[in-house]
């Protein structure tokens, strides 16, 4: 193995590849692990690294991805590939210019993004969306860790606003080609039709590609929480708020507000709660901040679903609360660390 590594390291010496050392280093890191050792205490370190951390997120997305391919055909794979390639190129370009390592966070963004799109989205729209998301959602802020908004959502929002026609007409039912179909949320909003709950749970409805196989999302989400990859507070408080508010609302205005279970099993709620709202970079880092964040998205989601022209509000509310994240943290910190007199 070490011989292989030594051979690989010869790549650094090739003149032609001089400008691409970032890429070579990244691949070396992936293949051979790293050989740096600790300098001072603690003399040994936890085995987790960002690669594995992000891999856990991707594993959690596997059920949704496989289901999407099963329901909506091989086209899904093409969309994922387009997303990865477009986003990947941009990511690498920025890394080359900055002379920094390529960051792994993109692997998750690049997969989440196609999964929140309707199945018939044209490939060029996928490319435009991810490009916009990566550039304006992440890189311009300085890369992973510094961005304020979830890059996948920035891209999704951008194409929703820029190409509304394409987006709304790209939904379709699983297995049926050529026929567009409205999502269960739209059906409820326009004609008060309730889709049966087992169809919702197992994914035989129209919707964004990754969001329909809800049982898989729940499994993936539980996996994330169990492996400590995400904190439980945001998804639980988000979903809890939706359930609580819609339960009350359903009693008073059943025409406009669907029952809690329907709210839970429609649209991107579960997908958003487990995979997008929980993005650690764009959500508050304080624990009470996470609770407030979850409550906030819950309230906004329901408000948008019920009272706005849009049928779905998950995406908007997460982006909106992303914007409030620094403020929430600031307030929580100033309460937690308020000066107490004669404390010591």
């Amino acid at each position, binding site marked *: *193995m*070490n011989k292989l*590594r030594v051979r690989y390291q010869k790549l650094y010496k090739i003149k032609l590849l001089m400008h691409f050392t970032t890429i070579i280093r990244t691949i070396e*890191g*992936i*293949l*051979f*692990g*790293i*050989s*740096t*050792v*600790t300098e*001072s*205490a*603690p*003399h*040994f*370190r*936890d*085995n*987790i*690294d*960002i*690669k*594995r*951390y992000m*891999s*856990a997120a991707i594993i959690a997305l596997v059920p949704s991805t496989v289901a999407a391919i099963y329901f909506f055909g091989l086209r899904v794979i093409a969309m994922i590939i387009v997303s990865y390639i477009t986003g990947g190129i941009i990511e690498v370009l920025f890394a080359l210019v900055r002379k920094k*390592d390529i*960051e*792994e*966070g993109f692997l998750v963004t690049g997969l989440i993004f196609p999964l929140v799109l309707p199945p018939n989205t044209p490939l060029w729209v996928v490319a435009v969306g991810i490009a916009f998301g990566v550039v304006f959602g992440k890189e311009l802020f300085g*890369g*992973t*860790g*510094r961005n304020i908004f979830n890059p996948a959502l920035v891209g999704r929002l951008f194409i929703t606003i820029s190409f509304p026609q394409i987006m709304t007409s790209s939904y379709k039912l699983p297995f049926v080609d050529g026929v567009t179909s409205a999502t269960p949320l739209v059906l409820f909003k326009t004609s008060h039709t309730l889709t049966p709950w087992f169809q919702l749970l197992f994914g035989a409805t129209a919707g964004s590609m990754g969001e329909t196989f809800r049982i898989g999302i729940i499994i993936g989400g539980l996996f994330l929480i*169990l*492996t*400590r*990859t995400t*904190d439980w507070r945001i998804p639980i408080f988000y979903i809890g708020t939706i359930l609580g508010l819609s339960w009350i609302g359903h009693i008073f205005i059943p025409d406009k507000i669907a029952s809690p279970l329907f709210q839970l099993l429609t649209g991107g709620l579960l997908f958003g709660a487990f995979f997008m709202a929980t993005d*650690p*970079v764009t*959500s508050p*880092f*304080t*624990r009470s901040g996470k609770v407030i964040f979850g409550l906030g998205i819950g309230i906004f989601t329901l408000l948008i679903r019920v009272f706005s022209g849009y049928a779905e509000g998950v995406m908007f509310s997460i982006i909106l609360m992303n914007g409030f994240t620094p403020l929430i943290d600031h307030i929580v*910190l100033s309460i*937690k*660390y308020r*000066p107490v007199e004669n404390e*010591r």
Partner: protein
Amino acid sequence: MIAKRKRIGWGRSFKNFRGMPRKEITDVDIPEKVIIPLKQGYGEETEPIVEKGQKVLAGEIIARNDNNISSPVHSSVNGVIDDFINLNFFGIKTTAVIIKSDKTRNWISPLKEDVKTNHGNDVSWESFSSEEIERRIYLTGVSCLGNYGIPTHFKSSPMSTADANHIIINCLDSDVYDLEMTEILQNEELSKFVVGIKLLKKILPQAVAHIAINKKSKNIIDKLEGLLDHEKDIIVHPLESKYPINLDPVVAGIVLDEKISPYTIHQNKGILIYDVSTILNIYEGVVNGKPLIERIVALAGEGYIDSHFLRVRIGISFDQIINRNVKAGYDIRFILESPLWGEKIEDLSLPLDRTVNCIVGIVEGNKGEFLSFARPGFTKDSYSRTFVANFIPFKKHIDTNLHGEERPCIFCGYCEDVCPVEVIPHFVAKHVERNLIDDYLVKYKIFDCIECHLCTYVCPSKIRISDYIREGKQSLIKMGIEDPGSKAFSNEMNLENADSLNKNNGETINE
């Protein structure tokens, strides 16, 4: 008395690692020469009372100074004083005595008269007066152990015997290579331990003794309860054994039910902290008159062929202790006491002093691993639960590899979850990293950090959080901004160099 259970939300329990020391003690040969530092444990440097060329016996006092805060130092071998040298002993400059030994094992007691008697009257320890116990503790050198030494009517501690309010006996086994108390305190040891505590209580009658112990050592807890039944102010605290609960400020905070801060133990509250070996040394010193010339040291970690305990004379070099037990063909890093907070032993020719409990030897992980991040990880420890070893109890492997590239913080929150104090490590570290060092960091309790390094350990982005925090503290102190707690401490104790005295307890505070 058994204290109420307390819930602990932070920390990490390090269990089931390869290279745990076996509970078997072997004697190491008496070395040809020993180097004995004249400052060992708590206290200032002592003054030699021997000369070059003078013959000394093992156990004979070779240096003492009754005018400063210190405890006598003994020769650990029978032999001849060879030389006096200047030694840099882990950052502490001290004089050291080199003694050529004749390699014989016998020793004498520094208590001149027959040790089994009290000034000629044949009596057992139970009838010793507290002066007599204090005298024995001081003359045998045991009084140099613990965070402030053991108070006696000699100048062995800045605290007088009347100042002591709490004695905390730290039996926690939360460090990586700590053996469980059930293994260490078997039959005989347990009764010695109990006698040791009773002796301590006798010289510090007004102090409450707290025994902090892993709540899983039920067996020992029950026995202790039985043995200490009628003692009212000896309290047993069964605690969750999660690192860093075994570090002085944390254990003091938990046991005394105060908000933890590194200054808990500094606030002139009369808190004394001892470990198990100290209590056993008190027993040996007082009952058998045995001077502190020997140490039972654990060799722990995968760097050794056979990790177990060794009985060695003080002043022997690290080289000679680990010699023949080091795995060949590996790069091995030797660390004092703990792989989590201990200091690397750069110079193996340095001698062992009276305070060492463990010499850790772990393998340098300077070779990468093929597709390291994608392996199932049967032997890999992690705070995240993404490795098989989190679910199946295989023995885990440790090396010094970073296991990942340094990346920007992704706010995973692990560091905050494990931190024992009210610091948000990534938040404070980021300010220091960006050089935004100002007194608002004090508001965010930067001085509460006890430097347990657990935040750095768990970070998936491999950020050296605790180093940044330490840097921040140092710059703040340079700027003249200090923690109010530490100021209060030095004023009250009225000690000139309170901090330099505090070498022994693992954490150097405000260096």
